[in-house]
């Protein structure tokens, strides 16, 4: 399945996923301790330079991943133009952008399977409640069934279009949920046929 990992190989790809996540946690906590606008601006420049050093393609991918932030940038901009506290607005925009961009950098340079392995490791203390193999099985099942359900939804939409001029919209939700329930029963049987859940 499509992941957000960048196909452009960078030196960061080779660092262990756990280390990157720990580094990100420290960075984000530290970020919220900073109160000086110029420190933030410096950090933002450094981060942008780092991403540019990985090439244009990588940097533009990183920029695209910031796109969901623009409504919030707009809200902050309007708000602080209204109140006149422009420096505060710039500070908040920078902090928000840095927090998201740094996290995206970790996502872009870590393979899905490595990230999931870290999660499985972090869940190990819960193993009496949540056996690690069952968690791995759950991840695999979701990845297996997303394309399957998506395809069923597409077929349902086509079936709807074949017999109706209206767009299916939310009407697809019921058959989609029923498909998920049926697939769950069938998968439970398939799992049982080959030795069960643990």
């Amino acid at each position: 399945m499509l992941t957000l990992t960048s196909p452009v190989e960078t030196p960061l790809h080779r660092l262990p996923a756990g280390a990157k996540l720990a580094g990100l946690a420290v960075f984000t906590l530290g970020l919220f301790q900073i109160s000086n606008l110029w420190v933030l601006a410096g950090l933002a420049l450094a981060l942008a330079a780092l991403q540019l050093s990985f090439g244009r393609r990588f940097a533009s991918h990183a920029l695209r991943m910031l796109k969901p932030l623009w409504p919030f940038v707009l809200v902050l901009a309007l708000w602080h133009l209204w109140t006149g506290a422009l420096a505060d607005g710039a500070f908040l925009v920078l902090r928000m952008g840095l927090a998201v961009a740094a996290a995206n950098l970790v996502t872009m340079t870590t393979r899905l399977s490595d990230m999931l392995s870290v999660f499985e490791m972090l869940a190990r203390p819960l193993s009496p409640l949540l056996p690690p193999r069952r968690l791995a099985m759950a991840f695999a099942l979701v990845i297996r069934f997303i394309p399957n359900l998506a395809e069923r939804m597409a077929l349902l939409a086509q079936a709807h279009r074949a017999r109706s001029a209206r767009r299916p919209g939310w009407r697809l939700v019921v058959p989609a949920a029923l498909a998920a329930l049926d697939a769950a029963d069938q998968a439970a049987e398939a799992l049982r046929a080959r030795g069960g859940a643990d």
Partner: protein
Amino acid sequence: MERSLTHIALFAALIAVLGLVPQITLGAGVPITAQTLGVMLCGTVLGARRGALAVLLFMALVAAGLPLLSGGRGGIGVFTQPSAGYFIGFPFAAFVAGWVMERTTLPVGIAAGAASVIGGIAVLYIFGISGMAIVLGKTLSEAAMLGMAFLPGDVIKVVLAGLVTQAIAQARPGSLLSRPQTLPVSAFN
């Protein structure tokens, strides 16, 4: 045991797929996606514990780098965005919706609507608004004003959650795990 695991996994996949449904646009041009509807359904159909686990499973895969949040968002950054509070609130919303569903004896559709109001609006907004307040550096009441923009869409989703849960209860009575089973379910679970 198998059945519990596969229901949790399939509903995690369902939340993902509902994020892909073409968005329904309200009159005012505010797009709403069916994704939070998926979160509510986890609670109203699977019940508190399984519903919350399904949502957590979905979140883990999103955080690990699958672009499954509506609009193709994903990655660790979902925890640091202004909307992070909503994301973090998802499993709590599903749990509370399921909890309510398990405890009321109201007819399924009404119970599911009420459960979604409490879980999918009241609980979710507490998390979502707190998150926006922190990331955007605003007071809670200022953030709450921003959050209200989503209210019309979420009210529609509450109604839909009730209708959809009702339809599921009719089509697959044995599969509504949030309610005591009246019909014998297939013998293994």
